[in-house]
């Protein structure tokens, strides 16, 4: 009954060292987020407001989208609509081909990853260079990103140094992060200056003004948007918010939630094309309208892609991003992912439902509630063995009368359960733990036995009730006190590892 996600987690972070490194690196982001939140006196009020603005935006999304389109066009931008990934790829390919653009620089856009834009363009002879350093690293390595904000968090400096040496001809053995960054800077700078087009995502789209907002620490999106003559910005339809004045609410939450910084280095509000340039905005659905129509799941569309839920998730930290097999890993990925394939359906179960994700989400998405809702929605697809066990347990618990015989069976089966074996439903438990001892009697049985003994006693002696009880209590020393007594006598047996 072990889930394949669990096996993938082991394969992604196989050694203790890798596990510790990943967990510590990601937890550090959570720690920084906590420190940043603590310095904002209206943090919880801000979250509440951000959630409210997003709820409003989603509830009026069609109006906001048409308003955005109108104002963006008035400012001189072209607006395209893409139903799905295929449409996005087609539109972008055509835009580039019409201008003979063959060299493209791209800043981070999870949407374009989701739609497989890079391989589509590369297959058509377009060179696409990811300019976000972390994205560039995984692009050169031919791997998917493993984290929303820090795509190469799973790679060591030595691995990156070796990668740069292999792909960019940088000096062998160079692994200093600053020097490696400078080497990438020089290489990517040439590409910015010679690119035919820049493709970006957008963090927000503002209906009031027809603007898009792009947030980076590196400044790569600004270079990619302003140097080449063509700028193509791809964004999911859920990114639209009503007004410019709403932006500070999100901006005060975004970078603090992501990395603990007060704000990102560069926040650009772009309205219309730059002088002498062209701006094309591609609004993408790709399943978002479907999520919107599902009241139990639509709040996931409020996501501002900060990554805080990843950083806090004890499962993500100990599994690694690649275990998920989705474009976006972690809790938000598990909530957006279940529509896609068997592994996707498993993801909502790859959680202990601790709720930490919901507690850090800057827009208050009830992430763990949604994971639970997905479990309900896909219960009929669960493995047959699990469904049988669930049905059997439900039957046994339907009546207290059945519990007696059920427990008798359990007592017989218990020593068998302690032995590992493929058919053993407790096999997963036993992989990491011992089976707890099964007490001779359940509480229910003990209580009943003691109560009937009390009654029998009372009838025999016909003493006042209070004396009876006192007598009974004196005879039965509470087991917990007995055990505590035993432990105090034996001394502590804690063995430290």
């Amino acid at each position: 009954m072990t889930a394949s996600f669990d096996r993938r987690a082991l394969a992604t972070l196989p050694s203790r060292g890798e596990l510790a490194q990943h967990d510590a690196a990601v937890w550090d982001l959570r720690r920084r987020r906590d420190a940043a939140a603590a310095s904002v006196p209206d943090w919880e009020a801000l979250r509440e407001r951000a959630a409210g603005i997003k709820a409003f935006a989603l509830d009026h999304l069609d109006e906001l989208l048409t308003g955005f389109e109108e104002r963006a066009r008035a400012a001189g931008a072209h607006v395209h609509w893409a139903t799905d990934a295929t449409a996005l790829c087609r539109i972008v390919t055509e835009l580039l081909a019409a201008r003979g653009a063959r060299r493209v620089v791209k800043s981070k856009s999870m949407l374009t990853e989701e739609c497989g834009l890079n391989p589509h363009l590369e297959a058509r002879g377009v060179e696409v260079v990811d300019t976000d350093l972390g994205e560039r690293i995984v692009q050169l390595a031919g791997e998917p990103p493993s984290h929303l904000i820090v795509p190469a968090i799973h790679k060591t400096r030595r691995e990156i140094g070796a990668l740069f040496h292999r792909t960019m001809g940088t000096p062998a053995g160079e692994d200093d992060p600053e020097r490696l960054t400078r080497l990438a800077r020089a290489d990517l700078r040439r590409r910015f200056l010679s690119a035919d087009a820049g493709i970006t995502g957008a963090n927000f789209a503002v209906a009031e003004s027809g603007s898009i907002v792009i947030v980076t620490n590196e400044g790569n999106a600004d270079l990619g948007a302003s140097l080449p003559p063509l700028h193509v910005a791809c964004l999911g339809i859920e990114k639209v918010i009503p007004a410019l004045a709403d932006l500070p609410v999100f901006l005060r939450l975004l970078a603090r939630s992501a990395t603990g910084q007060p704000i990102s280095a560069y926040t650009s509000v772009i309205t219309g094309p730059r002088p002498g340039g062209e701006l094309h905005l591609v609004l993408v659905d790709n399943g978002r309208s479907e999520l919107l129509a599902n009241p139990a799941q639509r709040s996931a569309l409020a996501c501002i892609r900060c990554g805080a839920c990843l950083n806090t998730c004890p499962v993500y930290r100990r599994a690694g991003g690649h275990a998920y097999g989705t474009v976006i890993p972690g809790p938000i990925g598990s909530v957006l992912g279940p529509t896609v394939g068997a592994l996707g359906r498993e993801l909502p179960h790859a959680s202990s439902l601790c709720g930490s994700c919901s507690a850090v989400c800057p827009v208050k998405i009830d992430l763990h509630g949604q994971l639970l809702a997905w479990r309900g929605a896909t219960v009929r697809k669960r493995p047959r063995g699990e469904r049988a066990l669930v049905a059997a347990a439900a039957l046994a618990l339907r009546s207290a009368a059945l519990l007696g015989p059920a427990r008798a069976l359990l007592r017989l089966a218990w020593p068998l359960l302690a032995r590992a074996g493929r058919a053993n439903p407790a096999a997963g438990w036993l992989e990491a733990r011992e089976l707890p001892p099964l007490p001779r009697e359940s509480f229910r049985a003990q209580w009943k036995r003691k109560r009937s003994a009390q009654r029998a006693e009372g009838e025999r002696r016909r003493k006042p009730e209070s004396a009876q009880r006192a007598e009974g209590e004196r005879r039965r020393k509470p087991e917990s006190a007995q055990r505590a007594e035993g432990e105090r006598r034996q001394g502590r047996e804690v063995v430290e590892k």
Partner: protein
Amino acid sequence: MNIELFVPCYVDQLTPDVAWATLRVLERAGCRVSYDPAQTCCGQPFLNVGASREARRLAERHLRRFGGAEAVVSPSASCVATVRHRYAGLGLGAQGAARTWELGEFLVKKLGKLELGARFPYRVALLQSCHGLRELGLGTPSERGPGAAEPNPTELLLRAVEDLELVPLARPDECCGFGGAFSVTHPTLSGRMGRARLRACTDAGADYVTGTDVSCLLHLDAIRRREGFGPRAIHLAEILVNGSST
């Protein structure tokens, strides 16, 4: 006060001592405690695997059995969270929500009692219950920013126990990795998370680890017995019942 004892199914089967300790603590606090042996399960494990039909049936049964109670108290934050927060989603409204309590919050918030004459001369680490903390509000989760602090009844009760030293844990409320079926279907991850909590306990020098949820404690204890390190687990009720008057 008249209390109905709500004994979670796994406490009934695996740790009856905890149920007895809960009963005695409540009596010591001046309550009259009744127990209905016909109760079975609140439905939480079924809800967690998405079996909402089975969960609903058990929930209806639970509400029927506890229908007339003035107060229902349980040594399990997760079961109480199910009744208070998940029953509405099964179409059962808010029945039972207002009168169902976790043991510690009942003692502190409802009865106003901190001192119970308990003594436990050891260093104890508190394993925060995820359900207790983030759903029942039994304290302020570490994720929260300024402006919404909640007192922690479990902690308050432990601090009032004579000679008990509460040792703080790094990452004070990280999940222990039990998560119900998760512990069986995801043994690698569940084991990694549990071992990390145990290590945090030993790093803090704890002799015992306690909490409001037997499930979490059983999971940690079972890892301790496999790995050979870590403090013993003991439920809050078992600590509170220790000491002077028995």
